[in-house]
């Protein structure tokens, strides 16, 4: 692995909330360009906090996080915003601004590069607007640019969220439960789209997923998080039932139908 290839390097990342509850107990994670990493684990394991510590939405308590070799933990103000521009984030489908149009939502991906008054007047550089049209077409929403975001279906909303994040031309993509509240078919379509776009742009991706099946299907590598500690790390094929029990706790993981009890 060459040094330039390494997009993200997290060392001994800790997060405590006021009151002393520590939710992340010193995590080490490395991520290469073009790699799709999935984080699984029970609710409350710290998956969302991990992503938010990386882009500073939640301040980390200790440790180091290097983006292409440069420390980004503890940055403030304009420096923090400059780092955030290089990190795209995709949330659950509700994270669009409902009363803005699809185009306004997608263009908000360029806010970090646009002055306040230009963005207030919705005057974005022609290149950004062209890029937004290109991405809308790529995610399958051609012609939807004037539709208000609250008029879209869950899957369409998530496509807008993806376009918004990609318009940042990010080097790293943080994806937080992208398929929560989506039906199984739409969830797979969204994951496939994410996977393709990450490959096209040689992006490094960290995705939190609740659905172990989707994680197995779409990841290069999986990390299992339990109570703020990494308890599993490996390829999708290495994620056995006993590993799942380590991550989530004891459970019968067989997917066959429950045997007929009367037999």
């Amino acid at each position: 692995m060459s040094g330039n290839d390494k997009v993200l390097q997290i060392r001994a990342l800790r997060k405590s909330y006021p009151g002393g509850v520590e939710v992340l107990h010193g995590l080490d994670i490395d991520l290469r360009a073009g790699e799709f990493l999935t984080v699984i684990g029970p609710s409350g394991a710290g998956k969302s906090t991990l992503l938010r510590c990386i882009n500073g939405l939640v301040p980390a308590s200790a440790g180091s996080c290097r983006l292409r070799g440069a420390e980004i933990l503890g940055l403030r103000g304009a420096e923090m915003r400059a780092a955030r521009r290089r990190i795209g984030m995709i949330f659950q489908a509700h994270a669009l601004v409902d009363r803005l149009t699809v185009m306004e939502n997608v263009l908000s991906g360029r806010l970090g590069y646009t002055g306040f008054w230009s963005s207030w007047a919705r005057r974005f550089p022609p290149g950004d607007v062209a890029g937004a049209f290109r991405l809308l077409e790529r995610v399958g929403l051609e012609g939807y640019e004037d539709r208000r975001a609250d008029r879209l279906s869950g899957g369409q909303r998530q496509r807008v969220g993806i376009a918004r994040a990609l318009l940042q031309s990010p080097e790293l993509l943080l994806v937080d439960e992208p398929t929560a509240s989506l039906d199984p078919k739409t969830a797979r379509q969204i994951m496939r789209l994410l996977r393709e776009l990450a490959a096209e742009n040689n992006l490094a991706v960290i995705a939190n997923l609740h659905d172990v099946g989707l994680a197995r299907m779409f990841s290069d590598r999986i990390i299992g998080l339990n109570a703020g500690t990494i308890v599993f790390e490996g390829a999708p094929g290495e994620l056995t039932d006993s590993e799942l029990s380590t991550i989530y706790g004891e459970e019968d993981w067989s997917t066959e139908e429950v045997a007929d009890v009367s037999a």
Partner: protein
Amino acid sequence: MPVREENATKVWQRRTPRGRLALWAGWALALAVLVACARQISEGTLWVFVADAHRQAADLLARMVPPDPGYMGVLWRPLWDTVNIATLGTLLAVAAAVPLAFLAAKNTTPHPAVRQTALLMIVSSRSINTLIWAILFVILFGPGVVAGIAAITLRSIGFIAKLLYEAVEEIAVDPVEAIRATGGSPGQVLTYGIFPQVFPSFVGVSVFRWDINIRESTIVGLVGAGGIGLQLDASVNALRWSQVSTILVIVFLMVVFSEWISARVRKAVL
């Protein structure tokens, strides 16, 4: 303990015996206070006057009907003043209330101390009635429209800011986080993430307050702060009851009209 056992079955009741007793005691106390108040009011009333109220009402009505249409010509100017007092007062109040609301909302305030100051300003504005503000401003600015505008403004700032900061505190956090995550500046987070979410309540509250202010600006004239209230006061003092009824009819029509407008505007932005 609402759950107890009786013949080996669990019985659930909404309140404990002690809770039931406290509830009855509370109702009994409320009733006692009500009776005491009624007695005190009764002692302070001259019932002779109340007894012939229906005759007085009939008398007053007879003097008011018919209204005096010839008086209308004098009323257009004060009516225009009244609408202006309400509209300008509301606009100025909105301009002051929007920043105040963002300073007062828990999720947008720069500092808790700023928040407390903003809340104090909102409470002071709200706790003083428009008519009292009007009396103060008539002393400061002299009688006229300016005092009325200032009174309407000062009272409305608190009203608009309070409803608006409550709306700001109830917004969804996901879109706001998403805008922050793109690297947007605080100003952009405000204009892209927060303002679109509170825009409907912003318009709704402003128009609602304008609607209230149309009504309030008809009375600030009673203390000299301009508008149609001045005419009303003059006509009442001169016992010109047909003029009074003309004014009341016109005010009624204006209020109906303003309610119609505010209903239309609120419907349009939702």
